[in-house]
């Protein structure tokens, strides 16, 4: 499969978003679309095959190889990124359906100067929250999203049903474990991942 060349130029009136009919000779029914993704604060406009997952576009078109392809079926969580601020499995999201959305990948977590790590990245280093590191970008993005969810009062199956709505949920170890259960670590670094998250929320 040859992907059409993309452009990183901002969208122009001459190149409307949506179905991209491409060069003469292509089928009338477009199978490609022009989209803009706001990735780590930068708008990136490109033409994508409608079949491309957000994960493949990030990794293969935009050079952001932090998000990993583990199972490619939404079961392992190693592709987790933030879409409009909420954690999501990038392998299950058609990139074309994310047109216009803000995407944050692990590359966007650290300060823009590239010098200061996100507190969770620092804590994963301090606590040895990984061995091989393959699941780590997904664990980090998932933990960032998860902490925001708990702060906004989103319950989990470990939350007391009587906990008042819209008030922050305290992240006990049991809460952290169930809320991060969508991120599998084949090395079994879970105890240190939980410790790292606990460090940051304190």
């Amino acid at each position, binding site marked *: 499969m040859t992907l059409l060349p993309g452009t990183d130029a901002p969208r122009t009136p001459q190149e409307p978003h949506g179905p991209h009919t491409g060069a003469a000779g292509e089928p009338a029914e477009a199978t490609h679309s022009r989209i803009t993704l706001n990735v780590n604060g930068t708008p990136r406009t490109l033409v994508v095959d*409608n*079949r491309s997952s957000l994960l493949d576009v990030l990794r293969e078109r935009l050079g952001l190889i932090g998000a990993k392809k583990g199972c490619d079926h939404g079961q392992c969580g190693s592709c987790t990124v933030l879409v409009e601020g909420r954690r999501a499995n990038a392998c299950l999201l058609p990139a074309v*359906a994310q047109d216009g959305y803000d995407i944050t990948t692990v590359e966007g977590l650290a300060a823009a100067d590239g010098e200061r790590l996100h507190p969770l990245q620092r804590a994963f280093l301090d606590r040895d929250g990984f061995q091989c590191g393959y699941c780590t970008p997904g664990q980090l993005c998932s933990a960032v999203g998860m902490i925001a969810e708990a702060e906004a009062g989103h319950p*989990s*199956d470990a939350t007391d*049903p009587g906990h008042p709505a819209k008030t922050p949920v305290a992240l006990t170890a049991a809460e952290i474990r169930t809320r*991060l259960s969508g991120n599998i670590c084949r090395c079994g670094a879970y105890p240190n991942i939980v410790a790292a998250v606990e460090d940051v929320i304190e």
Partner: protein
Amino acid sequence: MKPYAYVRAATLDEATAAYAGHSGAHYLGGGTNLVDLMKLGVTAPDALVDISRLPLDGIELRPDGALRIGATARNSDIAAHPVVRDRWPVLSQALLAGASGQLRNIATAGGNLLQRTRCPFFQDTAKPCNKRRPGSGCAAREGSHRDHAVLGHSPHCIATHPSDMAVALAALDATVELHGTGGERSVPAAEFHRLPGDRPEQDTVLRPGELITAIVLPPHSAGLPSAYRKARDRASYAFALASVAALVEVQDGLVRRSALAFGALAHRPWRAHRAEEALRGVEPTRAAVERAVDAELASAEPLRDNAYKVPLARNLACEVLTRLAGPR
């Protein structure tokens, strides 16, 4: 994966028109199950009609006390909604028992109802499966089927429906609102999914091109003690082996009304009318609850590998019903 066209609908009518205008079209909500099935080759649409940005994500309490949950509301937002947690807690609990935090952020209410079975033979295009390819046979019947149905199955299909949410909706007497070219209609959530019979390819009563627009929780099931309990192979992020959604209203020491639905036992959420009937007007002692649940499960027809599901479901139901009927 087969190349496909993509259409983003801005209105309901645009969505149904786009569906009608493309042969082999599928609606795209969150895509958590559909995209997976496309990767597996189980589903091969020629066009996706994206309905995820339709203004159908509201959750509104109506003047009559019913709650209308828009079809594109995300599973995580429904589970966290103050009115759902306060008035229909079983729904919040069922949603939180399913999938992962990431998936719940993506998955929509309508898509949750329309997800397909996780029967491994359905997902493997090299295997016969009457649901995937009508008339090809059922590989699960002789294959490993510990996860499969014990109630309401047929010689053609022994798959179960994987949704947790749908089990709670069945117990709550929820209704599903539908929009099609023929107009609007609504069906009880407990009758939205079908039993397999000789047409297992037909999961639901949805007509071609019809869209789910909302799920409505009725006022009569609001504010009652209710709960969801799920047994699974690991403590989090796994499909149910058996699950139970229940609500119980006790007045003057007697059961005025109860509702019980089982998940992961059948091709659809299994509303336990026989058990409910047996409990009506009686004192909810442990023995009375056991008798009622046993009356329901007497019709179970377990297969070679899944007889364990019957006592598992029985114990879950007895525990939840007894707890809900007990002193509060």
